């Protein structure tokens, strides 16, 4: 089997070690004999006839995020929207997550329009306001996610989208409602970097599995030795004062 992964704006949106997530998808697939081809997706990419199973986008600084959002207004945006409509799996982290909402109002009050995959909006209350910074633990339906968050923007979900999980430690989407991230069918958004996928192998495998199901319904991922992964996961839980 060969998975095709589209990495959105690797040159602009890569500030919080987002390459760790990409590296994790590649390794965990390859260790199971699944080949992974990575395609860079930006204004320079040839998107004609490009097929992807999974899309991934990371975080960026304000200026880079603005560039990315401009690019999303054109062919790249159409490509991503079309992919999502066709059930391509997506993971959007931090700044990339914000861009997948309806709109983002940055620290200077400038309104940046998002791609509208998720029914949500993000407001940055200004440079002097409190940022959400620190270790974070999120409760999913099954299991937990551990990571680190660092964002100025406050995200509020609309009615037609579910949160990814509930915040146990940290801030998540905003300082108010204890929600973290967003989930719409097979599209996921989250504020967790740090690096998300290596330290949460269950979530990494969930994404890989979804992508594989597109090829072969009923396909089963083989087990990996995840001792180090779970060790780092549990250490992160402990640092945040959580038990399993």
């Amino acid at each position, binding site marked *: 089997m060969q998975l095709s992964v589209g990495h959105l704006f690797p040159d602009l949106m890569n500030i*919080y070690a987002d390459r*760790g997530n990409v590296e994790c998808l590649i390794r965990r697939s390859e260790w199971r004999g699944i080949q992974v081809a990575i395609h860079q997706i930006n204004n320079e990419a040839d998107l004609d006839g490009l097929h992807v199973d999974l899309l991934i986008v990371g975080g960026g600084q304000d200026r880079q995020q603005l560039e990315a959002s401009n690019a999303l207004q054109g062919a790249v945006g159409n490509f991503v929207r079309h992919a999502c409509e066709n059930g391509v799996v997506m993971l959007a982290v931090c700044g990339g997550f914000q861009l997948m909402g309806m709109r983002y109002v940055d620290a200077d009050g400038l309104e940046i329009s998002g791609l509208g995959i998720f029914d949500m909006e993000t407001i940055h209350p200004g440079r002097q306001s409190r940022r959400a910074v620190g270790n974070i633990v999120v409760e999913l339906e099954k299991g937990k996610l551990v990571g680190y968050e660092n964002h100025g923007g406050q995200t509020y979900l609309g009615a037609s989208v579910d949160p990814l999980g509930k915040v146990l430690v940290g801030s998540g989407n905003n300082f108010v409602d204890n929600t973290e991230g967003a989930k719409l069918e097979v599209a996921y958004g989250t504020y967790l970097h740090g690096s998300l996928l290596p330290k949460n192998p269950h979530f990494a495998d969930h994404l890989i599995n979804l992508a594989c199901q597109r090829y072969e319904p009923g396909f089963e991922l083989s087990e990996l030795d995840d001792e180090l*992964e779970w060790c780092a996961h549990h250490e992160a839980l402990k640092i945040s004062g959580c038990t399993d």
Partner: protein
Amino acid sequence: MSQVNVIIFDFWGRGIEKMREFVACLIARLAVWVLHLCGRRGTAFPGRIAEMLHSNYLIDLLNQIPLGVLLVSGTNGKTTTSHLLAEIIGRSGIEVIHNASGSNLTRGILSSVLPHCDWRGKLVVDSGAIGVFEIDEAALGQLLPAMTPRALILTNLFRDQLDRYGELDSIARLWRSLLMQTEGATRLIFNADDPSLAFVATGYSGEKIPFGVTSHNLNAAEPDQWSDSSLCPRCSNPLQYSYCSYSHLGDFVCRGCGFAHPESSCIGAVKEIQGLTSSRFSMTFGPESIEVNLPLPGLFNIYNGVAASCAAYVSGLGIQPQRIMDVLSKTSSVFGRGEAFHIDGKVMTLLLIKNPTGANEVIRGLAGLETPTDVMVLLNDGVADGQDVSWVWDVEFSMLNLRSITVSGSRCADMALRLKYAECNADDLSYVHKDVRNALENALCRAREHLYVLATYTAMLEFRQELVSMGIAREYRK
């Protein structure tokens, strides 16, 4: 208020000020003395006490230094650059006050000045003394508006501890606005190869001295896609590079707005880099040129050497290039930054890693060695390290050619995981120890001749302290 009242009030006010100075200094000096007795030096603690008692005390003291102050700031290379600069000036017969321990917040600087004060809290130094201080990027804002340094040396701006400093752009923005508010009496010596710094400098009206390094034959023409600032700081178009020395440093131009690399007045030309031991480069200051054999590792230290030389040369202290060449050729590594120790017939080199750029340069040096290396990595998540350890995923550990690897530190599990995904000798990853002494013994056992220890800031301090208690390292004093 009558004239007499004003005088009395003023006298009373100054009396209180003097009294506070006296008390602040006395208590802080007592703290210096107690710490000395306990065998601990170079901490910021006495400075913190003095600062608590008298918040303007540091500025008062700095303003008393006869030849003024040279400040060094930037993401990487502050400690080495200021060390080289202090050494060049000191060897020229000028008394130098310097925060050698790398404690670089205002309280750390204050701690380093306190030993030069008398019991009343007044500075007692040579009439020709000068201050050389490294200062934290964010803390620069506490000094610049309140004083006029003789020179400000800016080394570089890389992504670093985003949880602490925020985005790269926000430090650049802060510096630019600080410089725009000054009167322009400070010499600004900056790394012209760094687009962010070149842009920071455009906001400054005073004297500017750009420096740079050329290394055409050594490196790629383009920064890799993970580098920090691929966009023009002025108009956000992508920058074009005719060459790139490392990360985003190089000769850049923006096709959008024409913003380009300023012409350097002091240029280092790389001749050779010998692994993690030394390098050779030539340096031109206007009409004069010297050859330097620098016994420090890597390209990043050539930048530090050029920054320090440039600052020493242009600071109006009458220092000749020949003197600079002599001092640089005989210098040794600073505290934890390439320091070598001898233990059980083996050599151990301690290399500080703080952020992706610095760590990648160290990895590049290790990867350039001919034989497989024995490496130990210590990853902590203290406030001074950055509590967000995700940056290790931006370090290219996969480039390492390893014989053995050992992992320790408060976040050793994260580090081990990073190495697993970099596919560094995965079976060797069972050597993960929380306890640093344990880790060291294990790593030494397995190392053939030379053990390289890569450590984050607080891990480096702890590790060095461990070496002191084992009788391998000496307490750092300067």
